[in-house]
């Protein structure tokens, strides 16, 4: 309780954003404000009655144009724990199939009295467009290969929780960097908080443009392994690539698969993250996924607290002209 007087959480007093669209444009203190708020929300999930009345009477809509189980469920549960009402809209059950444009769909849903819209779409920038067209708050739950802010926030939250800090750590992002919005958001968050980031994978899965983000590029996992404090193992996005980017799954596994044998050459306290869903036996072995270094399930638990924090903060960022 010694930290309560003037902790960094003070920064949430100045939080003014109504949307969470990406991490690229957040200030470092804003990222820290989300993480600090999430720490406070961890306690709610540990109660027997896992609910607080903060967003009572608010409506949160999950508008998902791409399949998702984990993120959608996590946002839903986070909203429910804040006492908001939630509705899930997925593309298969919407009238998109009947030819309505996505903006019309979103506007129609908003007209039902929505306060926060959580959006996932295969096209980069979709949440940014919606934020301009709608009155409600918009949260990006993944836009194509662009960003997935809450996933990166929960990754960073988990690292901070286990390691006690971000600054000065070396974090390896392993695998499919080219198709990964998780990688992009992670790079923004980690760099802003002072970590050293190495992206590592087959040259075909690392875009040249990534050098602009001030990260180290490596093609050999074995070479960088002993230097990494954290390994974040990204999923091969089979659905986003047309194939031919690496010769075979076996060869990928041989060079980049995280195995027990490889981990023995890493730091003793290396932390292993994986955004999931994991392809067991491709990016990492089952033994590693369930092993002592793995924080895979802790990430899921933390995801809930992080999403509660984001929902809470963006609803506070709404203008309240009538009240002032």
């Amino acid at each position: 309780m010694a930290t309560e007087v003037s902790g960094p959480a003070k920064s949430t007093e100045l939080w003014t954003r109504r949307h969470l669209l990406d991490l690229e444009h957040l200030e470092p203190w804003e990222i820290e404000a989300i993480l600090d708020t999430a720490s406070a929300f961890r306690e709610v999930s540990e109660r027997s009655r896992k609910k607080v009345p903060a967003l009572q009477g608010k409506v949160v809509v999950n508008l998902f144009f791409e399949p998702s189980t984990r993120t959608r469920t996590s946002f839903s549960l986070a909203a429910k724990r804040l006492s908001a009402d939630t509705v899930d809209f997925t593309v298969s059950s919407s009238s998109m199939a009947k030819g309505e444009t996505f903006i019309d769909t979103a506007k129609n849903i908003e007209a039902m009295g929505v306060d926060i819209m959580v959006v996932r779409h295969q096209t980069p920038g979709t949440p940014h467009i919606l934020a301009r067209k709608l009155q409600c708050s918009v949260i990006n739950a993944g836009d194509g290969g662009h960003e997935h802010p809450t996933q990166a926030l929960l990754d960073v939250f988990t690292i901070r929780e286990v390691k006690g800090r971000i600054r000065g750590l070396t974090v390896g992002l392993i695998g499919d960097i080219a198709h990964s919005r998780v990688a992009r958001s992670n790079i923004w968050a980690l760099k802003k908080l002072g970590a050293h980031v190495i992206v590592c994978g087959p040259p075909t899965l690392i875009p040249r443009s990534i050098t602009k983000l001030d990260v180290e590029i490596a093609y050999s996992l074995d070479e960088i392994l002993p230097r990494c404090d954290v390994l974040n193992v990204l999923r091969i996005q089979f659905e986003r690539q047309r194939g031919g980017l690496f010769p075979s799954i076996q060869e990928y596994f041989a060079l980049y698969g995280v195995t027990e044998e490889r981990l023995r050459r890493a730091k003793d306290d290396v932390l292993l993250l994986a955004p999931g869903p994991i392809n067991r036996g491709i990016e990492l072995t089952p033994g590693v996924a369930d092993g002592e270094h793995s924080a895979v399930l802790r990430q899921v638990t933390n995801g809930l607290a992080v999403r509660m924090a984001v929902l809470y903060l963006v609803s506070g960022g709404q203008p309240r002209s009538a009240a002032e």
Partner: protein
Amino acid sequence: MTTQREQVIVTGEELDALLEYLADRAAALVGDPERTALVGIRTRGVPLAQRLAQRWQTRYGWQLPIGAVDITLYRDDLDIAPRWPVLKGTEIEFPVDDRVILLVDDVLYTGRTVRAAMDALCDLGRPKAIRLVVLVDRGGRELPIQPDAVALRVDATPRERIEVRLREIDGEDGIVRR
């Protein structure tokens, strides 16, 4: 912090005497120390709860568990707050079920904070009873809530602020009217 229109109504030494008095009054609320706990309302209720506990430990050897409750998420004015309040989190690491909870705050005014704190406590379980211990009662209640132990009553107009300062947070002890 000091402005021209600030009036010291209690000095640091006097605050110590007030706390001694409050510790006396509140001790009468402790039936079974094994089944009693202190919960401070953030921010200044927490060091006050700690100071009461210290005094009781010295005097009676009681070792009461201490918790902190953050009422932010239970406020009834979240929608109209000019700024979104800082979330510091509730830290109550003991079961509240069947315990007598002494809820501690610095200033009692409208009663809305206490209402929120009681809701927060009841979401953690079912206390045997909740008793309210405050340093200052400044009147002006908007809800039917009264303290069980109070050290000082002051009259204040709605335009005035009664501020308790504690060295753990503010660097000095005292009570001022602004």
